């Protein structure tokens, strides 16, 4: 089972100083920064998933997450060098896709098959996923002849036509990457239909798309139905699915790889499951920058809150947490400082009991990842990209361990 991590330009700056919160002004983004696979040992994933929408943007709206100079360097040097795939303790694979979520609202996918093939080939990817159009709905009882399914059928046909064209071009131009076809559907039946068609075209690697909103038992229902049509040598990839507890079951249905950002994103998007431990999660300790919290900034600008006062509370919260980590003060002193500061920026949520749980458990001390070992309590402070991304990396590390444990693999380097 291979885990791919979707790239969204998530690196950490090794020159960042947690006390002064300054960095080397001459650091060059991405080049001097570090990817998770360069920081963690073993690398927490087997490869990166890089989407065209993130690199190139979509023609109409977004410009992507890459600067022009970065984008050109990726094309010139290829993914292996750009993402430094060989810098970890084991080399990584790279998979390309189109980033169908970024254009889910459009009538048709904004990319031609030709441009997508040249994107994968130009960047030197190992795997390339055909152009697809997401179907969000899950309605197992609606058959394809039903009027309600018209738009879903249209999207599935677009996806299959593009997959057929993609296969033709890949075969004709003798590409260097392994092509994957995408199955989109709204029911076990329709997914099985798509898989059958893709196999008929010639695909033996098939990615299942549009399953992110599905419940686990719905995904399993689809996989079971797909089993009826799946050739014994067909391998499945689950797009955007993590569900760690089900990994062995997924594997029994022919799933050999998946990708997910959720362990990373939960570090700073989730309301409470921010920090992963082997068997549970913890809430991170929120100490936003006075300058970085929009609501607080507005209250200061209007004169409602004194800026000096806010800064004092912010600094004291950070200082107390660090003292706590050195065993110089107790839990209550740290909690009090957090509560006093959150009273000025967030009067709604009272997280005291969750914070107490986090502080008393001190999970960062038990963690064996390089990040927790080097930055201590900073990893669990919810504040600014450098801390939040490091916590995201830590989560990937724990997630990687969980996956290997699920598969019964040995967890040594």
């Amino acid at each position, binding site marked *: 089972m291979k885990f791919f991590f979707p790239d969204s330009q998530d690196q950490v700056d090794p020159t960042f100083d947690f006390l002064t919160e300054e960095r080397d002004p001459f650091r060059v983004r991405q080049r001097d920064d570090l990817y998770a696979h360069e920081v963690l040992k073993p690398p927490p994933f087997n490869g990166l998933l890089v989407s065209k929408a993130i690199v190139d943007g979509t023609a109409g709206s977004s*410009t992507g997450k890459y600067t022009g100079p970065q984008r*050109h360097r990726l094309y*010139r040097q290829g993914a292996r060098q750009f993402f430094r795939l060989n810098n970890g303790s084991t080399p990584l694979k790279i998979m390309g896709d189109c980033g169908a979520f970024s254009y889910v609202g459009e009538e048709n996918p904004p990319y031609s098959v030709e441009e997508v093939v040249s994107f994968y080939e130009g960047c030197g990817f*190992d795997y390339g996923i055909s152009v697809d159009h997401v179907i969000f709905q899950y309605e197992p009882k609606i058959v394809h002849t039903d009027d309600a399914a018209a738009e879903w059928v249209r999207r599935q046909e677009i996806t299959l036509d593009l997959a057929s064209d993609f296969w033709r071009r890949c075969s004709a131009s003798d590409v260097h*990457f392994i092509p994957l076809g995408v199955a989109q559907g709204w029911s076990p039946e329709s997914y099985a239909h798509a898989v059958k068609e893709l196999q008929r075209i010639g695909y033996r690697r098939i990615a299942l798309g549009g399953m992110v909103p599905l419940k686990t038992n719905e995904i399993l229902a689809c996989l079971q139905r797909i089993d009826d049509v799946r050739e014994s040598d067909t391998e499945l990839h689950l797009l955007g699915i993590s569900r760690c507890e089900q990994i062995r079951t997924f594997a029994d249905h022919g799933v050999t790889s998946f990708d997910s950002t959720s362990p990373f994103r939960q570090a700073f998007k989730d309301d409470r499951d921010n920090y992963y431990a082997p068997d549970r999660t913890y809430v991170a300790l929120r100490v936003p920058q006075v300058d970085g919290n929009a609501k607080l900034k507005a209250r200061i*600008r209007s*004169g409602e809150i004194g*800026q000096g006062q806010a800064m004092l509370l912010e600094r004291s919260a950070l200082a107390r947490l660090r003292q706590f980590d050195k065993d110089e003060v107790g839990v209550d002193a740290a909690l009090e400082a957090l509560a006093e500061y959150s009273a000025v920026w967030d009067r709604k949520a009272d997280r005291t009991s969750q914070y107490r749980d986090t502080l008393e458990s001190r999970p960062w001390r038990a963690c064996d990842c390089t990040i927790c070992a080097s930055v201590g309590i900073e990893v669990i402070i919810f504040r600014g990209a450098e801390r939040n991304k490091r916590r995201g990396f830590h989560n990937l590390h724990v997630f990687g361990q969980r996956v290997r444990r699920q598969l019964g693999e040995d967890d040594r380097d």
Partner: protein
Amino acid sequence: MTKQGRESRMVEAGNQKNVLHLPALEIRQGPNRRLYTFAVDGKQVPSFAAVSRVRRDSQQQLHGYQRPEVLAHVAAIRRYVESAESPMLPNAIVVAFDDRVRFVPADAAVVGPGYVRSGTLLVPVSDDWEDADKPGFIVDGQQRCAAIRDAGVEAFPICVTAFITADQADHRSQFILVNSTKPLPKGLIHELLPAASGPLPNQLRVRQLPATVLERLNFDERSPLRHMIQTPTNPAGVIKDNSMLRMLENSISDGVLYRFRGSDSALPNIGLMVTVLNDFWTAVRDVFGEDAWGKPPRKSRLMHGAGIISMGYLMDAIADTNGSGEDVPDTQGFAAGLKIVKDYCRWTEGTWDLGDGIPRRWNDIQNTPRDIQRITDFLVSTYSSKQGKRHDRSSRLF
């Protein structure tokens, strides 16, 4: 935070009226205006002067006039004050006092101009005052004061200019006056940067390298671009300084010039950067010739933002296919690469065929990110596919 504890040394114990005695000059400016100028330790300023933050009360009445501290700006000044390179804050902060502050002229009649006399300014101070109780308000210099307040230094004496008035409207108009001036034009800053020394704000330090390289390209005897880049002191140049800076910054961050940008221990090798650029632009001049070279952008798009920046990307592409490290093409090497795309370029006439089925007249190309990207993508992909090295990156998998 502030080290107000130290200030108690200044005052007599038990004396409720603590007063700073500050040697000062009184300057008469017109019939009704008196200014005071004096020096004081910046660490002491918070004991007698507050920042008047703008806000509205429950009746929607406006109070104060200052915005919040700009924390990044404060941090930059603080770093400067803490730096070892003998920092200097030469311009005075401006304080408005109320009439609790008095000026006592010196007894001795000093011979001098009639509009100035020396004496002592008596400023009441207290550590217990709320902001509203303090006799002074900082009209200009709140970021500097905050930086000195936060700085890890024992003391940092600064110049203060003060006036005495009880009228807040007066503060407010002075505040508007000192803060409504125009910042220096970017072009002038960039032209001054190469010859500036000492600690500068970080964003300018980062710009110093491209600005220095640009200066060499514009003024070195052997540069093919000599006197061609438009700057405040070289207004006749045809290439906009901004276009050239962007081209340089792109290559320094992600292209061939990155190889010479130095590391922790090594400074950037500006000489090698200039050599590469001289070789490349000489090749551009030779390959595209008189038709397109040296003309204003309205006559040649090669000298236009779209041409300069896309050529920069092509330079990086040619360099990358010809090895790594200090293994950089010379003029002939660059020229060979440029000749591959030459026939597809329409810098001065005709219509670009960018491969998307939409013909674009040469002078429809604008200096916009979109057009720059179009031309760049076209040139770089044409170059890569025609010189045929594209497919040797990975082993065959499929």
